[in-house]
């Protein structure tokens, strides 16, 4: 049986004051839990088989980059703020937060939380954990998030963070999975330690093979972490994962080959969870390089792709057609009414002629490192484009070194992103002029102006209008082709129970399946 969970949106109320209200009343259950039918059972060993994990993975929070590291981290760590299953921000180590002007943010620490070592979680630990990602010698992947941060300081039981400009969405950044709270020592955390204040305590860990964890008996959340024991296995081969689930050697797997979802379902030995989110597959074009510097050529390519066929073939139907819009259906200001682009050879040829060309030949560089099925997606794209006078020469690149050698190096390639829960975060990271991950090297004056304006705008309707205009600009003048939003598809053994609402913010219930799920 397939559970298709409808998209959820992050509400502004949840972002700005959600946890303040919750925090005032002490430990209140997250909204999603109230809808769960039966009370979760305690106990059992939850075995997860993930198609990620590398023997070079480490405990350093700045370097977590794959699903294995993310789920393993969520099993042993807490963060300041958690995104709940409805997409609302709720307090974790931060009990509540507030701001007067959007520039100075005050996070009040929860009391009585301890690390696995028994030590209390203090303001200093939090500051050390945040500072690990900040400063000149920081090696963290999210170092740039902290560029606008001018100061982090303690104020009694509060952590105060000052920004160089107002940002209404700042608390969202604090929910990033890299920001695990770890014990500090002289203002620094030990990045080779597994100690945290999360639901499970590490018993053994072999990078790229397995991790076993036992329930933290002192965990502060009263109705979380239902399993006695968690085992996380790295099973890189998709057939091996399927077999492990079907033979009962694991209880949960991710990344199911779309071709086999139907067959797995027919076996009746597993539940398939297909969660629509904001994750998306992308073909960025270098807007500085000919022929992509001409928006007409870009539009021609956008009409030369059969989006529905991509969703059916590459995702096995587990996804949705995207309209070159990086803001997904789970975002609050998603512009659903934006006119759709269907596969239209005449229109593609029209735009080619506008660009003064009869036909054009471009190289598309792909590897499955970009996203599962990228090579196949490229082959499909080349076929439909050929009917529009566009000759796409597919170049298969090695997976190894793809992000280094191809992405943002070759003018036309494949890429992906997990999506962002807030619009500003997405646009600032990938589309603002000069942003580090602006992989189409795109620059648009009006867009940049709107982005800054919307960030501090408080009127909801005005804000919506601005974000919708930005989506239109990216879709019709931008330099990326976003053909589809991919669902998060996972399969569980039939005895695994989940809350009714599963988070669309990241895979595996926002990486939190280990503490939110249970055995029926």
């Amino acid at each position, binding site marked *: 049986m397939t559970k298709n969970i409808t998209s959820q949106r992050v509400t502004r109320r949840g972002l700005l004051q959600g946890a303040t209200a919750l925090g005032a009343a002490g430990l209140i259950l997250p909204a999603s839990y109230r809808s769960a039918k039966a009370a979760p059972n305690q106990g059992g060993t939850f075995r997860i088989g993930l198609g990620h994990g590398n023997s070079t993975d480490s405990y350093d929070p700045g370097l977590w980059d794959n699903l294995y590291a993310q789920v393993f981290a969520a099993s042993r760590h807490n963060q300041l703020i958690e995104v709940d299953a409805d997409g609302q921000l709720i307090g974790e180590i931060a009990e509540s937060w507030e701001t007067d002007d959007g520039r100075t943010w005050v996070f009040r620490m929860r009391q009585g939380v301890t690390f696995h070592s028994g030590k209390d979680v203090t303001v200093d630990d939090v500051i050390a954990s945040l500072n690990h990602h900040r400063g000149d010698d920081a090696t963290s992947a999210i170092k740039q998030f902290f560029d606008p941060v001018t100061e982090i300081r303690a104020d009694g039981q509060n952590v105060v963070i000052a920004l160089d400009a107002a940002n209404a969405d700042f608390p969202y950044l604090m929910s990033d999975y890299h920001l695990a709270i770890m014990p500090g020592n002289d203002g620094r955390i030990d990045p080779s330690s597994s100690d945290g204040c999360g639901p499970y305590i590490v018993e053994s860990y072999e990078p790229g093979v397995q991790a076993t964890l036992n329930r933290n008996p002192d965990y502060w959340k009263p109705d979380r972490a239902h399993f006695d024991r968690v085992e996380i296995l790295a099973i890189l081969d*998709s*057939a091996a994962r*399927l*077999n492990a689930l*079907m033979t009962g050697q694991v209880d949960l797997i991710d990344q199911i*080959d779309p*071709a*086999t979802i139907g*067959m*797995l379902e027919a*076996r009746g030995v597993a539940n398939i969870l297909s969660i629509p989110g904001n994750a998306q597959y992308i073909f960025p074009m270098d807007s500085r390089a000919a022929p992509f510097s001409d928006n007409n050529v870009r539009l021609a390519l956008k009409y030369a792709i059969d989006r529905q*066929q991509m969703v*059916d*073939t590459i995702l*096995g139907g587990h996804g949705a057609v995207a309209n070159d819009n990086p803001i997904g259906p789970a975002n609050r200001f998603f512009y659903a009414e934006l006119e759709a682009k269907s596969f239209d050879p005449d229109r593609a040829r029209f735009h080619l002629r506008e660009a003064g060309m009869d036909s054009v030949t471009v190289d598309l560089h792909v*590897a*499955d*490192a970009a996203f599962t099925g990228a*090579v*196949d997606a*490229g*082959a*499909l794209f*080349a*076929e439909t484009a050929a009917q529009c006078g566009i000759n796409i020469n*597919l*170049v*298969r*690149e*090695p*997976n*190894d*070194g793809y992000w280094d050698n191809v992405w943002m190096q070759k003018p036309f390639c494949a890429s992906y992103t997990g999506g962002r829960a807030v619009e500003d975060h997405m646009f600032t990271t990938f589309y603002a002029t000069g942003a580090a991950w602006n992989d189409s090297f795109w620059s648009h004056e009006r867009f940049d102006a709107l982005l800054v304006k919307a960030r501090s705008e408080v009127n909801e309707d005005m804000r919506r209008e601005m974000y919708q205009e930005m989506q239109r600009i990216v879709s019709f003048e931008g330099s990326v082709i976003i053909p589809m939003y991919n669902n998060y598809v996972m399969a569980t053994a039939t005895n695994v129970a989940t809350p009714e609402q599963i988070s669309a913010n990241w895979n595996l219930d926002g990486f939190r399946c280990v503490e939110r799920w249970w055995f029926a």
Partner: protein
Amino acid sequence: MSVLIFLAAFIFVSIPLSWLFRAMLARALPRDMALVARDMPLTAAFGILIIGIYVFAAAFAPVLAPFAERAVVGTSFQPWDSTHLLGTDRLGRDMLSRLIYGARNTVGIAFATTALAFLVGSLLGILAALRGGWLDQLLSRFVDALMAIPSLIFSLLLLTIFGTSVLTLILVIAAVDATRVYRIARSVAQGVVVMDYIEAARLRGEGTWYLIRFEILPNALAPLVAEFGLRFCFVFLTISSLSFLGLGIQPPMADWGSMVRDNATLITFGDMTPLLPAGAIALLTVAVNFVVDWQLYRASGLKEQG
């Protein structure tokens, strides 16, 4: 179970077919070759027949294939029907057409690679055995060092550095294979060069090339030919394993090794699709080696009836 029945039926049909084919060859060929054909075992006739069919398919692929190599003509994994005799693949391309084009690409690449590997490997191997001394040491140590690096990982390294065009694929796999051939050739030739007739030829003042071509090679040929039959088929497997590790042939080119990889997961559910390209490889492997065995047998000079 159905696979077993299919296999039995296949064997049942192929025996009379091979017999007919042999009879036909014995009629059609000129007299001296017809004699050879008449005496060859059925397995060899079967091998030649299969190889013939493959070469034919490879040569006339555009005529034989009902659809183009890269054309998307249906939806994913359509079942076998009258339009798509063997169904469609993941992208909705006609499976039969892909298989036929695959014959052209795969056999071509495998043959080029193996021929190159044998040319280089066996010449150097025999030369090393013949000359001995520092040349032998230098070559053998160098080959040892290269062979000491696992071939798949070494290929992975080289292909990541040099790119994955068909030419680099051929050169890289040939280079890695040549080290294996070298070792066999040297070892076999070492047994030959200590023979008295080599000593005699040396004393006659024959040159190195003469010794290799007329004295050593004929006597070292058998194991080398046997090795050729296997190495040829290993090329498909190398390509397949490379695509397992994320490298491989450039799409949308059809090749059997990658086709096995693309569809392999389906076997988990008992779906036959991945067996088609794998079976195509297996059939060719068996056919090539049947012919090799026959040649081996003739080369051994044994006249007894087996």
